């Protein structure tokens, strides 16, 4: 009996959400098939790759990253450089310096950095906070105001601060909002419900349902992403039809495989290779499970993942 291909058809689709403006603007989501299943139906917007730059400098970064940004002194210069990376679709600026338990940079300084970065590149911009809920809410408010009209994505509103973030970024300045939860489909859905109940349109929301570095409880991540996709497409659950973005770099560059120096672990080999391997393995796995965009740091990772996406879709 000859093989007969039966495509898995869904009547629902992931919402297509646009970030950025002008020629370089980019669209996340929009597909009506399971992740990367381009054989079941068209995937018009292939998964996107973003480059993460951190506003606290390059100290401690892997050699390959430091060499790539050699000569850059400000985040804006780094952003301009990052935009030249092969396969970079957007820039993700992480305002680590704002952390009250760290450098505790003022909101004004951070906004100035964000503005400078925005002017240095025409790629779409994602603003990431410092993981302090209160400070992040202020940052997202002021950055959204300063970058009004730039159609940025703020990453992300959490259950603890969604009210402020949704009101400012989503309603007042009409930016895109990320909703972040901790690897639990129900919590992800609840936050989307709360944000949309405030009046933010589902079409303006991109969710980050959480991730881990590959090998660090990653099966939960896969299961969560997969169930989110199945609910969105199979059950037409509109509260889970937002595209998914996954900040990979901030997870993988914090585990020992990526951090341990070559002096400490000579038998593990090159730190750059290890870090890139972790970043690529995690990124590919979340893309296969349902993510529409990944945020990476190492130029080699960006090149590898974007090449993979290009060849698959």
């Amino acid at each position, binding site marked *: 009996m000859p093989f007969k291909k039966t495509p898995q058809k869904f009547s629902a689709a992931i919402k297509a959400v646009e970030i950025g403006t002008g020629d370089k603007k980019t669209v996340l989501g929009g597909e009506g098939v399971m992740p990367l299943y381009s054989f079941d139906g068209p995937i018009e917007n292939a998964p996107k790759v973003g480059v993460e730059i951190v506003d606290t400098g390059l100290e401690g970064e892997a050699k390959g990253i430091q060499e790539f940004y050699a000569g850059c002194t400000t985040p804006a210069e780094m952003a301009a450089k990052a935009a030249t990376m092969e396969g970079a679709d957007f820039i993700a600026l992480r305002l680590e310096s704002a952390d009250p338990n760290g450098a505790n940079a003022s909101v004004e300084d951070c906004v100035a950095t964000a503005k400078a970065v925005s002017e240095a590149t025409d790629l779409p911009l994602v603003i990431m906070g410092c993981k302090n809920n209160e400070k992040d809410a202020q940052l997202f408010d002021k950055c959204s105001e300063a970058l009004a009209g730039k159609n940025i994505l703020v990453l992300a509103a959490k*259950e603890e601060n969604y*009210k402020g973030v949704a009101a400012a970024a989503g309603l007042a300045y009409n930016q895109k909002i990320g909703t972040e939860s901790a690897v639990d*489909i*129900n*919590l992800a*859905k*609840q936050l989307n*419900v*709360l944000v949309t*109940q405030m009046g933010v349109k589902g079409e303006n929301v991109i969710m980050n349902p959480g991730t881990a570095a590959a090998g660090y409880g990653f099966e939960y991540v896969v299961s969560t992403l997969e169930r989110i996709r199945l609910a969105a497409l199979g059950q037409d659950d509109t509260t889970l039809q937002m595209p998914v973005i996954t900040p990979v770099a901030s997870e993988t560059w914090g585990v020992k495989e990526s951090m341990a120096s070559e002096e400490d672990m000579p038998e593990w080999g090159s730190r750059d290779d290890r870090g890139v391997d972790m970043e690529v393995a995690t990124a590919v796995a979340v893309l296969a499970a349902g993510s529409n965009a990944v945020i990476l740091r190492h130029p080699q990772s960006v090149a590898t993942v974007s090449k993979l996406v290009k060849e698959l879709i």
Partner: protein
Amino acid sequence: MAIITFQFKNGTHITAEAVVGANLLNLARDYNVAIDAPCSGNASCGKCRVQLMEGDLDSPRTLHISEEEYAQGWRLACVSKVCGDAKILVPDIAFAYMSRMKVADLSSGEEIAIFDQTVSDLKEAGIEFENDLRLIPVTMSEPTLDDTMPDNERLLWALEAATGVDDKKISMNFQVLKNLSQVMREGNYQVQCVTTTHGEGLRILNVLPGDTETKICGLAIDIGTTTVTGVLVDMQTGKILEKASSGNGQIRFGADVINRIIESNRPGGRKRLQKAILEETLNPMIARMCKAAGIPVGWIYRVCIAGNTTMNHLLMGVYADPVRTEPYIPTFFHTSAVKAGDLGLYAAPDARVIVAPNIGSYVGGDITAGTLASSVWTKETFSLFVDLGTNGELVFGNSDFLMSCACSAGPAFEGGDISCGMRATDGAIEACTIDKETMEPTFKIVGEPGQKPVGLCGSGIIDVICELFRCGIINAKGIFVREGKRVRHNIHGMGSYVLAYKEEAASVKDIEITEVDIDNFIRAKGAIFSAINIMVSSLDFDVSMIDDIYVAGGIGSGINMKNAVMIGMFPDVELSKFHYIGNSSLSGAYTMLLSNQAEAKVQELASGMTYMELSTNPFYMDEFVAACFLPHTNASLFPTVAEAMAE
């Protein structure tokens, strides 16, 4: 050594000797000073407030005590250490749980009618209301010099003549023998014997002079983790002579079963806990009922006790630790070996104590007795029986099969774990509505007209949360999202809603419900709903196939089913399917007391019930998180709520 004086509002006091550094709450427990401590001294519930009048205590200020209150001497007993002589005022609030408890199930005629209804339902299902207690009048010939038979043989011969039972098969209790001589002479050789069947023969439980007016009484008791209720019954007519309820005296050792088991494993703990339930709770209750009914406790010849697995283990002083550790094996499901005299329970020493059988570590006799009382097992249509207590238990099925499971709801349904929570005593807000425009509340309060509010009981909490949600004051996560006169935030940003300012309330502080309270309650209702959902879907059913939902428990007849559905505690089915059946554990025990067939039926139901362990179910956590949202993360499960909210 330091001297600590516990001063009570009624003027009495207890003096205790303590070493410096001793914990005040433990000291109070050692001296039987009742301080309410539902969290068992973890400083998390804030209920063990006492006031320092003289001397000093080494006690930090906690979240539960404001600076102003701290200055007035208010301390939490559980975090206080003795550092010298001191005089401590124990507030009445701590006493409220032992007395003046509203008998949640027997306060009105309509709740008494539930008992009659249960009996008639069971009769209809073919259960005969017969038991083996008899009152047999016996006439004997007077002894003479020619007839020197001893008193006991004389009685046995006469009984054989009266009943036809071989005198070799009749036995009597030692207490009966001791008094036999006087009783026979007092009655002029006319006596009445209270007997029960004993194997093929008879056992004499009591002998009374022939002309005494007597009654054969029985006792049905429900031992809840929080509340104990009981009825004294005339076994010949089935009439309820007296009723009583009280807080469970074990409560000061912890609010939930796990904390009680842990306490029972401390040195002398099993004895302490048994004493707390038996000597401090049950016996005073029985004495009160007997006094009111005008009978001696020795006229109680049969006792039926329904309680959860931990409660019946602790009552009997049985080692209970395996109940809380994997793989959760209790010492017994069913026992018929217990007599009142063995326990020291106030009743005839030979009175049989029937313990409603357990079917699992967390589904006990209260549920098997309750299952009998609900009519889940009599019908072909599918019914769900829900007992809302500190543990929530569910039974689902019909006349062909029964399934049960338990989930830990915490004490929230009974007002625990809620800062202004209280049991349904005087001053409890049992119903509430809130005006959507002005955000002003209106209450129905337990007690005499004009009673000022003191706190919230279970049904009141459901109403308040439902109304706050309906008015858009809190969001689906239970977080305050609307500002108003009655909404405020503390320095940590935690929101709260003031139900009554202290001027309007019979309390030392404002009565308010906080985000933490709401969160606790949402978890409790989430536990119940997710258990229902998992049990029903494990059979590939959905909630629309449930024809009747029987709700039992001390949460009170005041429970507003519509509001309970609004907040996602119960499935969204027609309201006419809900039936409140009161304290089904007690009404079940009452029928088991009166009827041998009912007793046997409970054994049969218990042995045929499938127990589903939720704690090892991989889907439970997921379902639970989904249910911790108002009404539910999956809004399609609650279509009528969505409609109502849209209006």
